[in-house]
């Protein structure tokens, strides 16, 4: 932990102004990720801008029938919000599958999007890591990579994005509202997080000085046929080995539209239009789900310790789509898998 300057922002414009073009300035919301990283000396901000007083705590319906979620809405409040529970239960479920009660109480919507990978080398400044210190090498490729990615990896980095909430938002086609020195913009969720490529130090396409103000959900919530299934090494309080958010729009037994996004397997919440296309117009059964899984995983590749994830992901996709089709979503409190 190093000495740093602490300032409070009074409004969104002020927060952006306070970053002052300094790449080492950081916003702090819940602090559940940033402060840990600071203690581990991974983040060494010169200035920490406290944004918790900004008026970004509303969850409001949009005129088009969607929902706008302020960037500072705590994860717990969002999960238990009546409109979310009713219209986007998959989002509630995904949030409840993450972290612990205490963490969810502190964690913010914006911070959750920007939480960094849990790759052990990223966290340990004594080891090489391209994401933390570009050009030093990736320790995970030949190292302990049980939790790492099987899709979208690069020679530079095989880390995964750890969020559960984001997987559901990806499935729901959310958009991210940001404000920066040059004004406001709206980023589709699929374009928000990046693949590592040759710049793994950049997790997202957010530009320096930009702040997330809200996440917007379009009207479609898959409230009747959905699930969030998270598989991990203990029954709670562990990051996903594989997680999946699924939603189906059914006409009898036939899939009108099917969507699924995976967590724990790539540098960003992973969705594949080709895999979803397999579902369209098909009967909602295991054979269909397996075909879709095979398409999504067609380029999957494992490393020394995580090859099992390919098989696990396939099984999770089939199981989760089945849960959604049967309208028996996975409970996050009862741990038996539905």
């Amino acid at each position, binding site marked *: 932990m*190093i000495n740093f300057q602490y300032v409070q922002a009074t409004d969104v414009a002020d927060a952006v102004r306070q970053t002052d073009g300094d790449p080492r300035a950081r916003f702090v919301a819940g602090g559940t990720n940033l402060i840990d990283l600071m203690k581990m000396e991974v983040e060494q901000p010169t200035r920490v801008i406290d944004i918790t007083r900004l008026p970004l705590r509303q969850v409001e319906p949009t005129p088009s029938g969607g929902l706008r979620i302020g960037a500072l809405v705590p994860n717990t409040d969002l999960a238990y919000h009546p409109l979310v529970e009713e219209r986007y239960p998959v989002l509630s479920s995904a949030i409840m599958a993450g972290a612990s009660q205490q963490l969810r109480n502190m964690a913010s919507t914006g911070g959750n999007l920007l939480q960094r990978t*849990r790759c052990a080398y990223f966290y340990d400044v004594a*080891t090489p890591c391209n994401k933390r210190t570009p050009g030093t090498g990736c320790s995970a490729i030949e190292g302990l990579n049980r939790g790492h990615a099987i899709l979208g990896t690069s020679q530079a980095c095989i880390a995964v994005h750890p969020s559960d909430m984001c997987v559901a938002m990806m499935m729901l086609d959310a958009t991210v509202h940001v404000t920066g020195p040059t004004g406001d913009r709206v980023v589709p969720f699929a374009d928000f997080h990046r693949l590592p490529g040759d710049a793994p130090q950049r997790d997202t396409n957010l530009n320096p000085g930009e702040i997330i103000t809200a996440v917007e959900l379009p009207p479609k919530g898959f409230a009747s046929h959905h699930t969030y299934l998270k598989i991990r090494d*203990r029954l*709670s309080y562990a990051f996903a080995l594989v997680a999946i958010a699924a939603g189906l729009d059914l006409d009898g037994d036939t899939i009108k539209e099917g969507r699924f996004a995976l967590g724990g397997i790539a540098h960003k919440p992973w969705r594949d239009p080709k895999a979803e296309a397999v579902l369209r117009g098909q009967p909602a059964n295991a054979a269909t789900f397996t075909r879709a899984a095979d398409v999504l995983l067609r380029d999957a590749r494992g490393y020394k310790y995580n090859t*099992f994830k390919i098989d696990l992901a396939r099984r999770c996709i089939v199981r989760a789509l089945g849960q959604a089709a049967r309208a028996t979503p996975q409970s996050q409190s009862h741990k038996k898998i539905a």
Partner: protein
Amino acid sequence: MAGYIGTSQSRIDGVKKVTGAAKYAAEFNAPGLAYGSIVASTIAKGRIVHIDTSGAKRVPSVIDVITHQNRPSMADNDKAYKDDVAPLGSPFRPLYDNRVMFNGQPIALVVAETSEVARDAASRIRVEYTEEPHVTNLFQQLDATISVPQPTNPSEAVFTPPSARGTPEQALASAAVRHEGTYYVPIENHNAMELFTATAVYEPGGKLTVYNKTQGVQNVQRYVCGVFGMKPEDVRVLSPFMGGGFGSGLRPNFEVVLAVQAALALRRPVRVVLTRPQMYALGYRPAMLQRIAIGANSGGTLDAITHDVITVTSQNETFFRQETGWSALLYKSANATYAHRLARLDRPTSSDQRAPGAATAVYALECAMDELAVALKIDPLDLRMRCYSDRDQIRDRPYSSKALRECYAQGAAAFGWDKRNPAPRSMRDDGDLVGWGMATGVWDATQMPITVRIALSAIGHAEVACATSDIGTGTYTIMAQVAADSLGIPLENVSIKLGDSALPPSPVEGGSWIAASVSNGIATTAAAIRENLLQIAKTMPNTPLANVGPDDVALAGGDLVSRLDATRAVAIVDVMQHGGIDRIAQEKTTSPVQDEDRAHNTHSATFAEVKVDEQLGVIRVARVVSAVAAGRILNTKTAASQILGSVVWGIGMALQEETLIDHRFGRVMNANIAEYHVPVNADVYDIKVIFVDEPDDSNPLGVKGLGEIGLVGVAAAIANAVYHATGKRVRDLPITLDKVIGVA
């Protein structure tokens, strides 16, 4: 003497603990307290060439940076660094010289006016090393193992393999049914909640008071005296409360050396608190690779057993425990042979962790027995009964007591074992595979010499003092219960003093021996007080106790009364008044009765039910019944908590726990309790604890101790249940879902 002993009593220190009034080592303050932050090595082996402390020293309110170059004087011989429970070899000496022996080794201490500044400054220290090749992987050392050293005295002999019996090779070759398997348990860290801390208060004249998280205050006191050449009267060590030890606090850890170094160098009080990652540079349960072969005849009794073990230790010390002996002790087998080898790694020395040796070795033995039962096509519990022995199989002697049969019977009944379908994959619940497994547990019942002082006042208040520790198990409470019953006073009238090196001598709190030692110690001292009172009472005019012998009186309800005739009694207050005193104090040492003709052990039977998702491999431990035979139970509540905690630990050992080392760096990569998994609430379902009746006369109170027995066998019972559920035998822990996925 009855009343509190054997009842369910809440902890007498419970309110203090939950209100924060109980002070831990990091909570003792002193005027002018400075804070130390440890800089740890980032290589596993080599030499420090240069430490650049200039960046740290420039940070305002940094007081000093202590390294091997400017530390205060320390002893230069191994003997001085040997604590009471040190293994063979050359103990690690913190900040002694420029050698790096393991990754995460402390190499500098930054001392500052606040802990934040100390931590900031510590991150500004730059170290240059020359690296040497290291090895931290047991599997790379398999060709370079050494045999455990031959014992040079009886206390070392308890850790070396028992001698062979009969002709095991031939017996194995000709056995009707054979099972042979290799089992692996990885390195596991203790992960106690409280971080290791030392607050060393320097007092004018150079005396030290050290508040330290430890399982042995006098062990730390002797160690500090040895290392720094100080006199015992100048060093006092206190540890009134401890947030979990599990063996990690048996030996003094490096934080106490660093805090004392800084306090002596700066002549002011200094506190050093480890960070969570630094906790992984302490001792750990050694990884264990073991091969067991068992041969049985078709009647299901054993003909032969061989148990070969490799465990890990450091380059500088030779730590090992009795691993193979449990296989030798437990079951009848005319032919047997045991071997224990060690792999030296460039790591800190491995150490005791809850049921050291047994938790790992009995895991393998009990899985092997399960596999043998499958091969023999008999029920696993039935196999245990056929191989049951009422005699210690190593030394062919009876047990002081062994109610293992009752553990099997009562555990099986409570679990419903008779409804088990023996075929793997045959039982289901709502789509999940259901598996039932069981295992035996065994541990030592040991008593150690201990000294207890009691002061009883005329109005019936007692202060009981002993330098033992309460590592979280409930020692305060059982001490008070025994004292209250022995002195015939209410529990509230007893105050307990422990965890202070200035108190009467106690061994370290480990090996499950404190309950038996301190309870009998209290009874002995209380008897001395009673005799003392009786002597005075006999001099009272018209005393009703004139002809009563010392064993025929008891203390009850504030009176000294004849056991034979309750009408013959005098009030203690009157006795003291007559003697012209207002309190009686006695200090007595109690040693165990030598009883080499009998074996002294605790036993358990664990029954576990797992539910496994057939497609995804997710395992839930739905139910555990643990039946324990551990002599007299002093407090059913704190005792049951020990067993519950052990079962939870066993769930972690079976399914989750593993210290992950990147062998390229020789560095622990999951050095925090988010990534190093232990069970959370969601992992723990129904646990039932049964204490079977087990009268024992090894000591007057019949106490055996039970901090460790509850863990032994749990991992095996769960592993066996996973096999029964899935038909897949996983022989390396932890059984993570990737090892069973695809059983569908």
